[in-house]
């Protein structure tokens, strides 16, 4: 039997060597980080490291839709370019979860696949921290549609080839505070977060700015994911009678607070505000009538009629969260950059130099995306940071600020 094993291995080796020899091409890669070579008939692979399980899954499903539609659109627009070598574009999905170790695992898996050109992700900043480092070490660009933690693009801590089309928390927190103080005329504000880094950061920024403007942050409370009885914490907040209650959390707990706030004496005149974590048809469904009149901040471009049509046609539902357009832009940016730096051989093989790709991404200027006009700075912030405040009227998100 041992002999048979040897024979088998020998055959395998032989076949492999022959195949490797056939694959030789005329292009010589001079990029210091190497090149991705896509043989004719093979797909160009881009990764999607998104949260595809657990409580924040709608965020990932939403972004994934954006990426896939971007790929469809790019494929349709660049038929000739792809047709030469019979290429297609394949999206490799990885669940990065909403945690550091999830981000790490997804990044490791994508980094191990040498045919991956670039990655869209992650959704949660906690996953983005390790993922950005690992993928940059592998010279694979990572573009996030919804990481909002400032540290990811801070001068000292950013990763070499990490970019994002999402706005920084600081922008949104500021918008909320300004809207509450200037437009609503609120003098006191209370906040609730759910212990997620995103919500915690956002309410902190909002509070800080609100104070700078001259208002008062009367209570900063927190709940835990999975809590259901919000009445005690709301009763506590009611005792300080805030003008505005801001809770930038997610659908489940957000809906509970919205509903129960109506039942707690003392909060009758308090205006409720939330953020993009609750911009979702699911939220309206879960919170019901209680959500009427509530204000939600979010990226200015949430409702793109044309995109929504494509999304519904493809998935049979509305986009479940607020970052699909950012994901669309991220993917389009990546694909355009790939096309820009790629060298196509006579036989149709596409060569993509890695460092050049990364540089091309960072030099993106005045890119007309669905979220606005994107220009990347040296640390990887590409967003056109426009924030809208939406009001829920008859179960629809209606932008009310800034006035056009």
């Amino acid at each position: 039997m041992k002999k048979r094993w040897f024979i088998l291995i020998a055959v395998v080796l032989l076949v492999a060597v022959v195949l490797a020899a056939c694959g030789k091409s005329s292009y010589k890669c001079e990029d210091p980080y190497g090149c991705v070579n896509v043989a004719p008939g093979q797909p160009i692979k881009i990764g999607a490291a998104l949260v595809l399980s657990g409580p924040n899954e709608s965020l990932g499903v939403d972004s994934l839709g954006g990426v896939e539609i971007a790929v469809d659109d790019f494929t349709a627009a660049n038929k000739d370019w792809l047709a030469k070598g019979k290429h297609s574009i394949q999206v490799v999905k990885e669940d990065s979860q909403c945690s550091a170790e999830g981000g790490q695992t997804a990044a490791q898996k994508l980094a191990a696949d040498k045919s991956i050109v670039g990655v869209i992700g992650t959704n949660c900043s906690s996953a983005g921290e390790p993922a950005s480092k690992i993928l940059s070490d592998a010279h694979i660009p990572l573009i996030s549609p919804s990481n909002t933690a400032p540290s990811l693009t801070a001068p000292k801590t950013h990763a070499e080839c990490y970019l994002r089309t999402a706005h920084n928390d600081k922008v949104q927190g500021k918008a909320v505070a300004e809207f509450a103080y200037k437009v609503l005329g609120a003098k006191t504000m209370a906040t609730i977060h759910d212990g997620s880094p995103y919500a915690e950061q956002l309410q902190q920024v909002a509070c800080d700015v609100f104070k700078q403007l001259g208002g008062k942050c009367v209570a900063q409370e927190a709940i835990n994911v999975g809590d259901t009885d919000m009445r005690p914490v709301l009763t506590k907040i009611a005792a300080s009678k805030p003008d505005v209650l801001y809770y930038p959390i997610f659908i489940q707990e957000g809906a509970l607070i919205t509903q129960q706030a109506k039942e707690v004496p003392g909060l009758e005149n308090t205006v409720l505000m939330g953020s993009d974590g609750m911009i979702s048809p699911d939220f309206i469904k879960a919170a019901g009538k209680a959500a009427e009149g509530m204000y939600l901040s979010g990226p200015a471009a949430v409702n793109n009629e044309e995109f929504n049509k494509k999304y519904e046609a493809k998935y049979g539902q509305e986009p479940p969260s607020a970052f699909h357009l950012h994901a669309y832009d991220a993917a389009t940016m990546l694909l355009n950059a790939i096309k820009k730096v790629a060298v196509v051989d006579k036989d149709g093989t596409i060569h993509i130099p890695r460092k050049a790709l990364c540089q091309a991404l960072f030099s993106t200027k005045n890119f007309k995306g669905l979220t606005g006009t994107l220009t990347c700075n040296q640390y990887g912030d590409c967003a056109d940071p426009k924030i809208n405040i939406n009001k829920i009227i008859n179960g629809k998100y209606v932008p009310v600020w800034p006035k056009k």
Partner: protein
Amino acid sequence: MDSQNTFWKSAVKNGLLAGAIGLYSTLVGLVQAFNKRAVIEQLSLGHITLLLSWGVVAYVFLNHHREAESKGKLIAAGALVGGLGAFLVALLPMTAQWVDYHFVFVHAGPEMYSLLTFGKGPWVGSAMLVAVGALWGVLIALVVSLPTFWRNSVVKAFLITITVGLLSDLFSGMTIGWMFQPFLGVEGLNILGAVLVFGLSIAYDYWSAHRKPKESAEAVATEPTGITKAQLRRMVVGALALVVVAGLPLLLGSYLSHVLNMVGLYTIMGLGLNIVVGYAGLLDLGYVAFFALGAYMMGLLTSTGPLGIAHWTFWEAVPFSILVAMVAGILLGVPVLRMRGDYLAIVTLGFGEIIRILALSNWLKPLIGGAQGILLIPKPPLFGFKIQTPIHFYYLILVGIGLAAFVAYRLRESRLGRAWMAMREDEDVAEAMGIDLVVTKLTAFAFGASFSGLAGAIFASYVGSIFPHSFNLLISINVLSLIIVGGVGSMPGVFVGSLALVGLPELLREFAEYRMLIYGLSLIAMMLLKPEGFWPEPIRKRELREEVGD
């Protein structure tokens, strides 16, 4: 005549069961979700799921009646079971025009119906589905009526081929991945690969069944002087194993090494919890607390960010991580000294949650970062070299496992180890044997916690940033499950358990939302199949052996 009736009755019953399982996997969405994943050329995992849900029932049923019934009847029964199973599933698309299943079942929609009916409409398609089910049943009946050797071999080869196909994308990520390219499709195996795997599996079975059993005789033969052949063989095998273990990550590439690293971290934790639960019999559901403490200690002491308090290196901080976890183990051990069994379980669970919530709290945010966690935790330096990639960490973790296993093993073979086990068996009698329960319990908690602290410290440095969300109850549950799946109290069992419960789920990542379902089902299945664990603790033979320890 009567037995005939019961045979057919039970065939119908099994057909209904097959249908129920088929309906379950369809409605839960397994079939549809897996349909996108090719395993062998065009055959998708979705198809396989359906076929397996009928096939397993049919196989078990037919195999049970193999002796008593004729071949023809088996085939007929197989067709009945498979066909009936398929019919029940086909009821969905057939009745869909009148009943709105989608109102309740999210996956019941046109996409699923067209998948089930091969896109041929409810009537033609359903007939096709039933035909496929019946044929599949016949095929299974044919396999069942093969002679024992071939039957087992074919079933095994079938399962192995599916598994290899399922995991085939891992091969391309390996360092030696190019070797496998000719056998892989865009996804999964190609026909060549599938045939090859199937054939190899059968060939191997054939070989191992027909080789001459001379080796067993060899093993018994003892040389009068010095080492026996068996011992020599053990040494050679041990040396080979060492080489393999050392070379593994180089062979597997960075992703699989990463998976092994996670398995390794859980192994360290498992070895620690094994002391608490396996040896001392103290049911601890809050084990993650010490993991968190080790990680946070490492983060605070080494981070180069604003929360770092000492800017030490990994090596300077590790002893403190272990020490802090150990002290915490003792402190949290004191209030539970008087509690037994399940009371202990819920209280430790509470401790684990308390630690996590405190780590998350606004209250302690100025010290440990709250929800924002601790960032910028540096990698361990090593003589001017930086331990950075998963492959590097593999060796670091390997050293950690070695250390933990060494300590656990030596403790087990001591007065303290026996005291732990005596306490596990009967606390009162142990006390009456002169064992100080307080000291014995607290040392168990302390050692268990210190292993967890070590794992946490490595984890923090490995991931580079830690967040309170990483330290949830699921980790405690996972560690407890893996030591029980491996075999309570057994050190090799810990490794087998973490391979099964940490390694496999990592490999099943692409099934995202179905991963936990598979995890839950396999926990139940594993315990039903092997209640004593996959590698139960071996009984130490020492009545007639002279040596003590080594």
